[in-house]
């Protein structure tokens, strides 16, 4: 396989006798819009944790931009261009959204150790932070309030802005729409669609509406292994996929936009 943005070879994770992720080989191309779907318990979350380095792999390898990072810790992968959002919000409740993004930007820019000048005297940090919040269409009015008081959908937007502040080449979006009330989910969808094209995105999602609108390629995981991999149309027609989801979810091109 040639050097994609993110590649796994036979990636496996066992917990005791239970194999959560079973020899998964996946390739995310540069600038891809790739989605990873699968019924509950298919091993999606474990797989993301293996990719980001939150947990070590039992076997197999992970390559990021052609370099083997199987043994690299989380923050080293972040530095090499892999960023992720979290499924459950992991934000800074007491900081304002703007402060949180400024923090992320200043750390990426290597300014995090600067103690001798106030943030307010560093307009570049604030400018970049605002640009990122603009990119995810975070409303200007809410940028200085408490993050803890934000609506759930807004917190998801901030979550994406924080990941983008890392200037990633590969972005893992772990269920960005999960738990977002329908009224706010359009905001999240728009933010995801507006992601820069030079960033490869791997979307892990339950919301089929979002997946089929967004993805140009879909990988289906079932019982820890790859069940199918291909273009959205082919996946939607694949009988094995239908079977895997049978009774749990309706999958079909015809339903896109209504699901």
């Amino acid at each position: 396989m040639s050097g994609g943005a993110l590649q796994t070879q036979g990636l496996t994770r066992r917990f005791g006798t239970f194999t959560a992720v079973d020899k998964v080989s996946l390739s995310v191309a540069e600038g891809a819009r790739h989605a990873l779907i699968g019924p509950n318990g298919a091993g999606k979350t474990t797989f993301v944790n293996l990719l980001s380095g939150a947990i070590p792999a039992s076997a197999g390898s992970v390559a990021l931009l052609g370099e083997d990072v199987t043994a690299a810790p989380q923050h080293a992968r972040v530095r090499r261009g892999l960023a992720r959002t979290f499924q459950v919000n992991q934000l800074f409740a007491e900081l304002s959204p703007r402060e949180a993004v400024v923090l992320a930007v200043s750390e990426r820019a290597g300014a995090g150790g600067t103690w001798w000048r106030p943030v307010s005297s560093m307009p570049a940090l604030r400018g970049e932070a605002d640009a990122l919040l603009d990119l995810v269409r975070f409303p200007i009015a809410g940028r200085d309030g408490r993050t803890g008081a934000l609506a759930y959908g807004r917190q998801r937007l901030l979550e994406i802005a924080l990941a983008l502040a890392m200037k990633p080449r590969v972005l893992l979006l772990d269920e960005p729409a999960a738990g977002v009330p329908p009224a706010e989910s359009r905001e999240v969808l728009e933010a995801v669609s507006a992601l820069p094209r030079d960033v490869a995105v791997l979307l892990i999602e339950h919301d089929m509406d979002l997946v089929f609108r967004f993805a140009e390629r879909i990988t289906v995981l079932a019982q820890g292994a790859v069940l199918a991999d291909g273009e959205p149309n082919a996946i939607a027609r694949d009988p094995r996929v239908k079977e895997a989801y049978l009774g749990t979810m309706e999958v079909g091109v015809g339903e896109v936009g209504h699901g």
Partner: protein
Amino acid sequence: MRVLLHALPWLAAIAAYFLMPEQLPLLSSIAIAALFTVSLDLIVGYAGVVTLGQAAFFGAGAYTAGLLAQNGWGEPLSGLLAAAAVATVLGLITAPLVLRSGALAGLMVTLGLGLMLYEAANKAAPITGGADGLQGVEVWPVLGVFRFDLYGQTAYLYSLAVLFILFWLAKLIVASPYGLSLRGINGNPRRAPALGVPVKARLTAAYALAAAYAGVAGALLAQTTAFVSLDALSFQRSADGLLMLVLGGLGSLYGALIGAAAFTLAHHALSEASPIFWQFWLGIALIALALFGRGGLMGLLRKLLPRGAGS
């Protein structure tokens, strides 16, 4: 309006100098307590590392300055620097021990280290004077000009000047990207590394910085009273500091000033009646603050003052 608010505590401190000439030693002790509370605010309020042993650094600074002056080097400013240096080194040595394990074990390590140092000073009586305290501390005039007088005029203005400078340095630090990263770590220690924040290094620096501040506060006490006792290292001092901090309001440097002033004045008034009486009400205050919120006096003030003032 905002400039006036920022100037207010300092104007009050200078006014107190003229209005209460008999109470200058009390005012000095407020300034020193305020600096100690600022040190606790940096590590507890901003960085979120709870410590029960901050007195270790206060005492280390006090003994450093006291021993220097006792042994023939009474120059006060270099004494402060030496105290800061010793406390910083002590902070850097102990930080990995405190930060290594979980929050709870770290908390107990701070307690254990504080008690260890107290006991060491107690047993090292030939050097520290043990329970009798360090006698014969002779401090030279500040800048070679201002002699420490009987009324405590020099002592107060000297303490106030040091507090003023270090307070504004602390203001600068908490407003910097570094200060922001501390608040981020405090808010969500698990998420911060995912943004590339080197948590251990940042907290170690904060711990050492707070240690240096506490060391300078201790040195001020040694120099202005020409005496160091084991009290400087006591658990009581660490606990008092935490109370001043929460009384004023956690994570607000002005709160540290207000809390220290309120605490010291209350202590002065109540313990004159009876030390037991003081201890009782101190305990009640701690319980009430723990159960009913952290804003402290600063939280109250914020509700009364215009938005954005004094954070």
